[in-house]
């Protein structure tokens, strides 16, 4: 027996030696790189594909913001009421007197990344394509009935109804023209993998679930924005792995979705810097007025909830003060801001109890709060809310569900109350007002919000393009929403964009309008 063991051991050792020798004699020499590659880490996946007409996820919107040129763009600093400068357009739109026709001049001499020219015909083609695709993101442009080619570099958009918010919608990448020849040449599937636009970056490859590679488009019309590096959008399965990767220097930047629990260790790391990105995300508690026999149907009960929730405590305990309390009831950053929620501050538990007694509930009430794991701070925010409501005699039962069930029931308005996130789709106050304030909005329908005053205000808001008038109108909407107490704002959800010290050109931006063409990196020592 002992002999067998010795022989086996000797054979194993010899095999290991042989493999090692094979290795070291055949190891490839590392080849020198030409253009620098900057690796941007994120947990935001790309699905179903990169086609701007088929996609609505934040990650893809950001990618397409640098591969396509929307007609107008949102500047990095959106406060207050920022001016949306022309990008692919050559100037501001001329709006007809009845508000139904928007004439937009286009920049001349722009070429797609495949070399074909971009003009009014290709712009019209891109918009028509959106309506034909009947896609996910086409609803953004649902106010547009048709697009006409006026001349080679002018288009006219014919609207179904006056919509002052259209300019805001035209900053979305979905409104960036695509190359018709590329679509025809590649077919829908292949085009979805590496679509072709006019922007400063072009797609090189997409490995689903892993990464997207972009390279500078040297023929970009704005030569001052031609990128200096290749960009790799590296997708991580979770934030913790990504955090480790940037700490070890395996990636150059952790762009989005680092968990706030990881912030402290990154903030104290000497090799890592950051900027604060205004994402325009809010966390809120939605109260449903439409559940039969629910105490939430009574305004006083809802007010009691408003007075019980201590935003500061939540901000400090759950988010370490990084996410600040939100007072915005319209949930749009930078557009006609008015902190209408302050009327419920400071937190007043005694008043809440009084309101409940007035409403006929001297012994408190029982409500259910739904939530799902993807909401920031779950389940700690909900635990805090439960505790705070408990102080006023409101016994809240927490119910968590997986994402699929949550959204299915949420959309159906079957919840009594729910913690969720809200953001504007594009930089115009109407983008949320039409959803949550107008009775025809999908959110309003879920909570049975039907207020004639709000309906009238929302209609007025899109009918006029005068900024002073709009400021007054949306201020009134904010006040009314706060009075009705259906959407209880909690915190502003920020994002910190972390990058290693050898990366430059990182700037703060709003929502999905990330200006990645400014990025550069110096070689690491």
């Amino acid at each position: 027996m002992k002999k067998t063991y010795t022989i086996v051991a000797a054979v194993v050792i010899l095999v290991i030696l042989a493999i090692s020798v094979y290795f070291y004699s055949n190891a490839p020499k590392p080849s020198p790189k030409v253009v620098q590659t900057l690796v941007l880490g994120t947990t935001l996946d790309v699905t179903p594909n990169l086609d701007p007409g088929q996609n609505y996820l934040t990650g893809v919107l950001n990618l397409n913001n640098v591969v396509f040129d929307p007609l107008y763009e949102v500047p990095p600093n959106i406060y207050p009421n920022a001016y949306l400068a022309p990008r692919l357009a050559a100037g501001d739109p001329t709006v007809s007197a009845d508000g139904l026709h928007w004439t937009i001049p286009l920049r001349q001499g722009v070429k797609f990344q495949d070399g074909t020219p971009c003009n009014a015909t290709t712009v019209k083609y891109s918009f028509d394509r959106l309506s034909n695709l009947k896609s996910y993101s086409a609803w953004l442009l649902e106010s547009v009935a048709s697009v006409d080619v006026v001349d080679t570099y002018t288009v006219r958009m014919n609207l179904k109804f006056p919509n002052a918010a259209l300019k805001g919608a035209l900053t979305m990448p979905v409104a960036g023209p695509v190359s018709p020849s590329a679509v025809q040449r590649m077919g829908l599937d292949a085009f979805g993998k590496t679509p072709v636009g006019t922007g400063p970056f072009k797609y090189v490859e997409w490995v689903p679930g892993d990464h997207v590679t972009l390279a500078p488009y040297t023929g970009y019309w704005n030569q001052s924005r031609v990128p200096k590096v290749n960009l790799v959008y590296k997708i991580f399965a979770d934030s913790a792995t990504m955090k480790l990767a940037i700490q070890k220097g395996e990636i150059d930047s952790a762009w989005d979705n680092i968990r706030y629990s990881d912030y402290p260790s990154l903030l104290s790391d000497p090799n890592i810097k950051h900027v604060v990105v205004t994402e325009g995300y809010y966390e809120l508690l939605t109260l449903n007025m439409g559940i039969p026999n629910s105490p939430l149907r009574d305004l006083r009960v809802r007010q009691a909830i408003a007075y019980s929730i201590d935003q500061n405590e939540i901000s400090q305990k759950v988010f370490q003060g990084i996410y600040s309390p939100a007072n915005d009831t319209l949930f749009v950053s930078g557009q006609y801001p008015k902190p209408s929620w302050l009327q419920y501050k400071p937190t007043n538990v005694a008043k809440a109890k009084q309101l409940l007694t007035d409403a006929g509930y001297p012994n408190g009430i029982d409500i259910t709060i739904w939530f799902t794991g993807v909401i920031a701070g779950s389940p700690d925010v909900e635990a805090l809310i439960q505790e705070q409501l408990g102080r006023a005699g409101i016994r809240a039962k927490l119910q968590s569900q997986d994402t699929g069930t949550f959204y299915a029931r949420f959309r159906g308005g079957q919840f009594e109350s729910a913690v969720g996130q809200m953001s504007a789709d594009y930089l115009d106050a109407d983008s949320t007002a039409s959803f949550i304030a107008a009775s025809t909005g999908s959110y309003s329908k879920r909570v049975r919000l039907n207020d004639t005053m709000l309906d009238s205000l929302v209609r007025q808001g899109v009918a006029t393009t005068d900024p002073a008038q709009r400021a007054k109108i949306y201020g009134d909407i904010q006040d009314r929403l706060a009075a009705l107490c259906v959407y209880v704002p909690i915190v502003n959800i920020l994002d910190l964009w972390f990058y290693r010290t050898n990366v430059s050109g990182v700037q703060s931006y709003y929502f999905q309008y990330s200006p990645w063409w400014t990025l550069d990196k110096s070689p690491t020592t």
Partner: protein
Amino acid sequence: MRLRTYIISRILLTIPMIFILVTVVFIIMRIIPGDPVAALFGGKGGSEEQIALLRHQLGLDKPVYVQYIEYMASLARGDFGYSMVRQDSVVTELATYLPATLELTFCAALLAIPIGVYCGVLAARHAGGKLDASIRIGALVRWCIPVFWFGLALQILVVQTGVALPISGQTSQMEEATRVTGMYVVDAILSRDPRALGDALLHLILPVLTLGTTMAASLTKISRTNVVDVLGEEYIKVASLKGCSEDRVFQKHALPNALIPILTYTGLQVAILLQGAVLTESVFSWPGVGRLLLFAVGYRDFNLIQGCVVLFALLVSAANLIVDISYAIVDPRVRF
């Protein structure tokens, strides 16, 4: 019966089993409200028409029994359907993530089997003594430690002591070898990249320790029990009465007879191994089918969930089949 008949009948028996499993899972998933389409759209995006259109494209608006029949038919063709959340065929997804799980479970078994069996045999050899007692206690305690907590504890240890071991992932981003099989140790060897090989091996250490010691703990107990039972048999007494030395009795008579049931039991452990793999992959962010299943469950991706379940069932059946067949080859008494 003849061996060939036995093998064929065993393989055929697998089919109704998979059928039943898929049916059960199908029923479970269709009972409850909540569907993957809503998850994709989130709280806000898209109109009701968009959602209805997508549901129609995916065939989710057909009656349940129609969906069932169509699904079973496509399964028979080898088509596991389309994963809506990953935007890919389920088979592709499974093929992408299976290698990582195989790498993990194979290495864990490689660690667990020698250690577990050796410890068990050693304990049985010195049954009743101090060595036996310490081995038994060690195995028992390790068995009581949940696999995910063991992994977490290792991670905590590494972080607190500052040892330079990776605590998550299968590879580092920068040292990744070109993917050929998906098992990065193999891929690193194939592309002759020593740094990638070292990187892949380093990443394997903690997960394999976690999963491997879990398996080793139960193997120790089984081995010990089997050897002790065999040692109590009549023919062992006869052998020692005949004058064989204790060592010879052990090595020539007890061990071979005990090893067969031990090894067959190892095969049956595949189910437990897969279960442990799911949890280990979660702890270490290991990109295997365990994580894929958890992801699919979170998004109610029916096809992907069903695909994972079928895959697990196939793996367990395959292992059981191999065990039964090898047992039948070795022991003719078994084929009835």
